[in-house]
């Protein structure tokens, strides 16, 4: 059911945009910038909460930009899946902005840091809300443009080198995305996602031939895999996460990566799965069926398995906390996407699989953001994040160590933290789909996660304390504690999270409801 005239769907988009502009306007004073930025991110969280409430109570909200009716105009669709992802984005964004105020030096903050952070939020929010393929490209570019500057923010030798790699890879990815979108427009005749789904479901009625959709969607998948950092598109992740300021790395790992995962769920499970076309890869018996998802089952499995294994093994071998967290992100994204592979191959478990992906997304988003912010606090306290410079932090900075432990245990999947739920649902989806190979890979990945979290804890937090000052900032630790409490609360009080994820996965797979919300009754 769509509600016409729903301005509240645009609110999460307008609030960070207005905040970014206001921050630039008051650019002469650092204190005013901080005030506006903090107020803005709190307003963003409020707008997301209001939208979440409206959608949970009243159904999908649809907003037609400038009143042009669908499918000609740009549609913003706030359904359960979009609001779920926005909730994650708001949580991580609030923590990151508040942490930035303490962690990034004031001169740097005054140089449009807060404006960039809010522009990145605009891009992320637009990507989650849009219902139009080319509009998705535009919001991706907004998000990427802000992240390019934020990754290279400290402008040292390491940052410029990492940013060069990040920028070039993503610019090529943008060109490839344009190719895919152009091709999809030529095949289906429309850019509106709901209209594409409608046309693919009934190609004869619209006079289109859906056969090229498979290849073009594979081209688009490469771009989303690049955003999500799946192997073999992962090469930009470790340098970029090491180089970026810790709050930016938290937002990149916690939110921006998830935009790639969200795009995969939305475009492949809701839109492209509508097409019925014979899929057959000569020589590969696993790829055979009559839906685009029959191709993506094995492909996503290979990518996810490679990510889990490579990310886990490389993380164990890292010498510094940030490198470990970056490779861990690669591995964890493999975990997030693995149930999607099983869901694509086995239609009966599709909803459980998407549910598992979403719950694990929240786990990784919040826990990894907590870990990156903790590593930032460690850097501010000790002056280095190399394991050879750390040691015995558990005695000298106990609260900081507890925050790191909470984040690490959540990644491992220890109850009662939210990571336990994530791992539980992932293994449940794999078991229901009878995917023994995927289960084996997931088990190996879980063991590797335990290995690198234990290694980080032993090297950095236990053991003989190393010489040097440990000057922990109380305000930074307060934010970390709040985020750790969120991780614990989401795990202990899991019912609302699971209910929201269930509604989101149902919305992701309910193509009929999505199409009728946008096209059949959606007004201005």
């Amino acid at each position: 059911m769509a509600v016409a005239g729903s301005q509240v769907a645009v609110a999460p988009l307008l609030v960070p945009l207005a905040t970014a502009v206001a921050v630039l306007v008051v650019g002469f004073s650092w204190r005013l910038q901080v005030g506006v930025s903090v107020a803005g991110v709190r307003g963003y969280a409020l707008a997301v909460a209001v939208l979440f409430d409206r959608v949970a109570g009243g159904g999908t909200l649809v907003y037609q930009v400038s009143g042009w009716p669908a499918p000609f105009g740009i549609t913003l669709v706030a359904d359960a899946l979009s609001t779920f992802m926005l909730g994650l984005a708001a949580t991580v964004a609030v923590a990151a902005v508040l942490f930035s105020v303490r962690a990034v030096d004031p001169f740097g903050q005054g140089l449009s840091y807060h404006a960039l952070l809010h522009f990145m939020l605009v891009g992320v929010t637009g990507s989650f809300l849009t219902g139009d393929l080319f509009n998705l490209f535009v919001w991706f570019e907004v998000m990427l443009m802000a992240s390019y500057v934020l990754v290279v923010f400290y402008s040292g030798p390491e940052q410029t080198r990492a940013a060069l790699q990040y920028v070039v890879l993503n610019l090529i990815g943008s060109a490839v995305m344009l190719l895919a979108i152009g091709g999809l427009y030529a095949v289906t005749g429309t850019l509106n996602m709901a209209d594409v789904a409608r046309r693919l479901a009934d190609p004869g009625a619209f006079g289109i031939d859906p056969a090229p959709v498979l290849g073009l969607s594979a081209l688009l998948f490469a771009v989303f895999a690049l955003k999500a950092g799946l192997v073999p598109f992962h090469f930009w992740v470790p340098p970029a996460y090491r180089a970026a300021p810790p709050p930016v790395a938290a937002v990149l790992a916690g939110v921006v990566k998830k935009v790639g995962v969200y795009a995969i769920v939305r475009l492949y499970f809701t839109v492209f799965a509508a097409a019925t076309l014979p899929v057959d890869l000569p020589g590969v018996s696993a790829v055979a069926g009559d839906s685009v998802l029959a191709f993506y089952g094995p492909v996503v499995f290979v990518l996810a398995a490679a990510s889990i294994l490579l990310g886990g093994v490389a993380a164990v071998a890292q010498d510094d906390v940030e490198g470990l967290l970056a490779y861990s992100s690669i591995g964890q994204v493999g975990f997030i996407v693995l149930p999607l592979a099983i869901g694509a191959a086995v239609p009966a478990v599709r909803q459980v699989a998407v549910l598992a992906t979403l719950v694990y997304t929240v786990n990784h988003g919040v826990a990894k953001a907590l870990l990156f912010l903790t590593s930032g606090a460690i850097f501010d306290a000790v002056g280095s994040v190399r394991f050879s410079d750390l040691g015995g932090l558990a005695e000298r900075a106990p609260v900081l160590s507890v925050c790191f432990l909470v984040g690490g245990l959540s990644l491992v999947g220890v109850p009662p933290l939210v990571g336990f739920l994530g791992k539980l649902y992932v293994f449940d989806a794999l078991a229901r789909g009878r995917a023994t190979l995927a289960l084996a890979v997931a088990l190996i990945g879980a063991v590797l996660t335990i290995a690198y979290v234990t290694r980080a804890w032993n090297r950095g937090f236990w053991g003989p304390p190393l010489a040097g000052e440990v000057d922990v900032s109380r305000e930074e630790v307060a934010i970390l504690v709040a985020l750790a409490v969120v991780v614990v609360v989401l795990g202990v009080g899991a019912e609302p999270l699971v209910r929201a994820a269930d509604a989101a996965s149902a919305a992701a797979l309910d193509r009929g409801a999505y199409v009728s919300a946008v096209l059949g009754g959606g007004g201005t």
Partner: protein
Amino acid sequence: MTQVVLALVLGALFAIGTYLVLRRDVVRVVWGVAIMSQAANVYLVTMGGLVGRAPVLGHDAEATTCAAAGAAGEAGSAAAGCVTDPLVQALVLTAIVIGFGTTAFALVLTYRVYEEHGTIDLDGLGEVVR
């Protein structure tokens, strides 16, 4: 015939772009990325169909796009004064503006790489020891 020529041109542009992206000089890499994005823009324009007049409102009060005319079954749609698809041209305008912003940033980043490393030779950037 136009389709074949355009396809060959697009292939050549992508080949040139890929070749440049794989060079050692950072400026050549930026050139390569710029050429690849412009090739994607040319591709977008061709996706709108290669028949029809320019989509300028006012030349003909009752113009239909060639895609709509083709769907309605009119033969000789080019002669019927149909208009080429304006949507892809709007997409290309957006993409050109985005490409302008990102190319500008890539060039400034190149200069910054030179300032920090003293060289724009990718082999000379080397590993950074923290």
